């Protein structure tokens, strides 16, 4: 905390012309050449805006232009692009402060995109840029600084004594780069941590200064290892400073309409939230007991979906732990305020043991991932793992799913203390999980090995410890190298598609169809499921194009939502989004145009995978644990359900069959079902049966870009 700006050696700087945002756009992006320590402005063309809209669309377009078919995650030309989108930054509509971060992922080798809150994105936008590209690698640890208040860009060398872990680093940098102690809220920092230097599952923390807590808070761009890329580029942090946010900093065409629509949702949240999801009190943690009750809460590496101990980490437990009655939005004007925190939490392990810290979260994914999935029902353990993952810059989802895999390997006898360098990985031992993290940052063998992710570990254990390769493959929950997030998808074929028929790997932001499919049986046929697996991924992609959060879409609903024909789409909120887009950009929008905007970018991303040698059908299959019971005891845990299914759907009488036979019959049938699902989904999406967008389809959706067409034609001709 004693460092000042004088301690930071200025490497290079330049001024730029500040211009107000107009209709949600700057029509300009910023490129930072890290090796050359040089900033360049790039104009955004009308064509780029029309095809890519903004946010994730701009990110992917810039990433494509900056990289080559042979680019790997650690190639110098790989980029980290942070982009916002036209709706991002308005202060009236809840959930409007998101940044979309893209990069070629160290986990998957294809583009990852991650949606994150915090003040950085809106501040960057108001500073004058629709996106920031980081390219190349710095020689020494560097700070990238964008001063939107003064119109100045600079590279600084990280001085001796500057911390690495986010909770300290971002705090220090906030004080160093703020104009004075009164303006701390005008600074936002993007950083990773020591863990991100040694593991491919490194994340980015985006800070926001909390005036009431008098300290920084962080939100995470968690998935796919972008923090790892940041540290590989020797960037310690990116800092933005922007003072003077106003109601219309976003330059809306009709600011009064933005106010009206925003206020309508504010009021809806204030009135309905307490009766609905309680986001303002519990955040996404409100889902814990719901998932446990519906047999969907990952338990012991997704082997089970519930446990009698579930209530020990239920929503009411988190409500008590979270500090209440605070405006905990991750951007101004988000009255959904789900970014909860536990204050004055005393750590029991690791380098900060005995210190009292603020833990940002846990959110549902974290509480499930490092909680029930590890059979950890001690909220303290979950909080401690949450804190250390964040400050070390490690994704809680990938870490949770990886550690649950390790614990299952321990249970199966594949791991023991000799092989873990003394760490006990029995179910529920959160201190063992924490030790992995502490060992990782110190570069100790098992810590580093354990945090390589399940795809690597499954192959490694099969080779080194002669573990059954099929079992390893079955229980390593990943797609394309990315660990699955925290819903049990076994009993919902549509959700298996929701997870694995995705561009970037199994995460929860494309489609969540479990209730629609499994609980309410609203999409019974393959065609129904395929339609849902077209509509929802496209609809949800739209949030990423605009710089929006998905949660205010359906974690609060109008009181009369149920009267609509398709309540699961929350039609009134869809209408809000169309209106707010028009109020800001002046362009027309309706529910079909939304899908059309998304389809362009979604197909571009798929073609990007193809360009990098991926994007094939074979990469879109789940491990069997995500589809059905791997083991006999797993079958028996739901024997009634599986036996009934066998009789009614498969057409086999289970009575005379052994459990082993029944596991095999179920497996064969489920794999066939999934194959039929892929056929239906790819057809609906306009792709070949191998998962490649066809040139005709690209042309139809307005993406007949010659480079893109060449990539898919080469794949279809068998040349790539």
């Amino acid at each position: 905390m004693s460092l000042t700006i004088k301690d930071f050696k200025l490497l290079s700087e330049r001024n730029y012309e500040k211009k107000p945002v107009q209709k949600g756009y700057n029509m300009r992006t910023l490129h930072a050449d890290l090796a050359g320590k040089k900033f360049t402005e790039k104009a955004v063309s009308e064509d780029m805006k029309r095809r890519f809209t903004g946010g994730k669309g701009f990110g992917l377009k810039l990433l494509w232009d900056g990289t080559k078919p042979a680019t790997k995650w650690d190639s110098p030309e790989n980029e980290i692009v942070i982009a916002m989108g036209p709706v991002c930054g308005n202060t009236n509509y809840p959930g409007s402060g998101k940044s979309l971060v893209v990069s070629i992922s160290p986990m998957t080798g294809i583009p990852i995109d991650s949606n994150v809150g915090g003040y950085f994105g809106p501040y960057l936008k108001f500073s004058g840029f629709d996106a920031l590209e980081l390219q190349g690698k710095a020689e020494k640890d560097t700070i990238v600084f964008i001063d939107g208040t003064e119109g100045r860009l600079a590279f600084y060398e990280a001085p001796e004594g500057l911390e690495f872990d986010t909770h300290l680093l971002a705090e220090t940098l906030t004080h160093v780069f703020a104009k004075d102690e009164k303006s701390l809220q005008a600074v936002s920092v993007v950083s990773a941590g020591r863990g991100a230097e040694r593991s491919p599952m490194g994340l980015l923390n985006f800070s926001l200064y909390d005036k009431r807590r008098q300290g920084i808070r962080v939100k995470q761009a968690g998935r796919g290892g972008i923090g790892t890329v940041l540290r590989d580029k020797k960037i310690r942090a990116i800092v933005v400073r922007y003072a003077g946010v106003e109601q219309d900093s976003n330059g809306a065409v009709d600011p009064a309409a933005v106010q009206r629509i925003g206020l309508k949702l504010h009021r809806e949240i204030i009135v309905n939230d307490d009766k609905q999801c309680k986001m303002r009190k519990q955040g996404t943690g409100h889902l814990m007991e719901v998932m446990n009750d519906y047999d969907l809460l990952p338990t012991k590496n997704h082997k089970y979906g519930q446990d009698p101990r579930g209530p020990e980490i239920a929503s009411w437990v988190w409500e008590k732990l979270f500090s209440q009655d605070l405006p905990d939005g991750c951007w101004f004007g988000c009255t959904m305020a789900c970014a909860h925190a536990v204050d004055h939490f005393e750590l029991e392990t690791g380098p900060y043991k005995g210190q009292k810290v603020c833990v940002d979260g846990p959110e549902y994914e974290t509480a499930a991932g490092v909680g029930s999935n590890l059979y950890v029902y001690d909220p303290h353990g979950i909080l401690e793992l949450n804190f250390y993952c964040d400050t070390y810059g490690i994704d809680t989802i990938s870490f949770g799913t990886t550690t649950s895999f390790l614990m299952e390997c321990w249970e199966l006898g594949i791991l023991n203390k000799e092989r873990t360098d003394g760490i006990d990985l029995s179910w529920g031992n959160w201190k063992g999980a924490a030790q992995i993290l502490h060992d990782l940052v110190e570069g100790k063998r098992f810590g580093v090995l354990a945090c390589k992710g399940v795809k690597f570990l499954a192959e490694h254990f099969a080779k080194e410890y002669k573990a059954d390769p099929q079992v390893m493959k079955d229980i390593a929950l990943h797609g394309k190298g990315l660990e699955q997030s925290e819903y049990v998808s076994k009993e919902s074929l549509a959700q298996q598609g929701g997870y694995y028929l995705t561009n970037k790997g199994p995460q929860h932001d494309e489609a969540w169809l479990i209730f629609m499919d499994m609980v309410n049986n609203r999409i019974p046929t393959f065609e129904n499921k395929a339609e849902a697996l077209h509509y929802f991924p496209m609809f949800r992609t739209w949030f990423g194009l605009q710089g929006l959060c998905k949660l205010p879409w359906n974690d609060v609903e109008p009181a009369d939502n149920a009267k609509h024909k398709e309540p699961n789409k929350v039609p009134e909120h869809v209408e809000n989004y169309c209106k707010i887009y028009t109020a800001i950009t002046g362009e027309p929008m309706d529910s079909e145009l939304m899908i059309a905007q998304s389809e362009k970018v979604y197909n571009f991303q798929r073609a990007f995978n193809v360009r990098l040698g991926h994007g094939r059908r074979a990469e879109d299959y789940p491990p069997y644990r995500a589809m059905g019971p791997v083991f006999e005891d797993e079958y028996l845990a739901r024997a009634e359900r599986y036996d009934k299914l066998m009789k009614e759907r498969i057409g086999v009488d289970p009575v005379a069959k052994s459990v082993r036979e029944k596991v095999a019959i179920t497996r064969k049938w489920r794999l066939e079902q999934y194959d039929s699902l892929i056929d239906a989904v790819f057809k609906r999406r306009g792709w070949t049966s191998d998962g490649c967008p066809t040139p005709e389809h690209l042309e139809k959706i307005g993406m007949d870009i010659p480079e893109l067409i060449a990539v898919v034609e080469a794949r279809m001709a068998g040349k790539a």
Partner: protein
Amino acid sequence: MIKYLKMDDAKCVGCMNCTSACSIKYFKEDNPALSCIEVQGKGKNAFHLVSCDQECRRCVAECPTKAISVAPTGIVVINKNLCVGCLACVAVCPIEAMKWYPGGKNPFKCIACGACVKTCPKDALSIEEKEDSPASRFPFEVEARVSRKAAEGGVK
């Protein structure tokens, strides 16, 4: 102590002198929509007066930038330099005393200045003082609970 505008509905005759005085003072325009005090007609010559009681302070607790604070006199005030115009305060106000105007950058509210009091022909309005209450203390208590500096004796 909390300074506030006391309103007596029974004395109000609905002349709207108060809304004129208020909107002219702060917006240079005679427009009830730009007045911090609102006169609601209830029929049969009955009226209901609405303005901030300075006591509930839910807006103070809700403001993400702490643009809304409590002055030494107990009045709830908005710092326009800090306000980002999100209107969360408008949504949480239980009596709609936090006002906004379409296209206006900031919300606005009664600060018990007394401009309206002088213009009321029926003595329905007066500036008074009242004691602090659990509600008025609430935002400060919430903040004290989470402040890192307070918890660590000034050290983070």
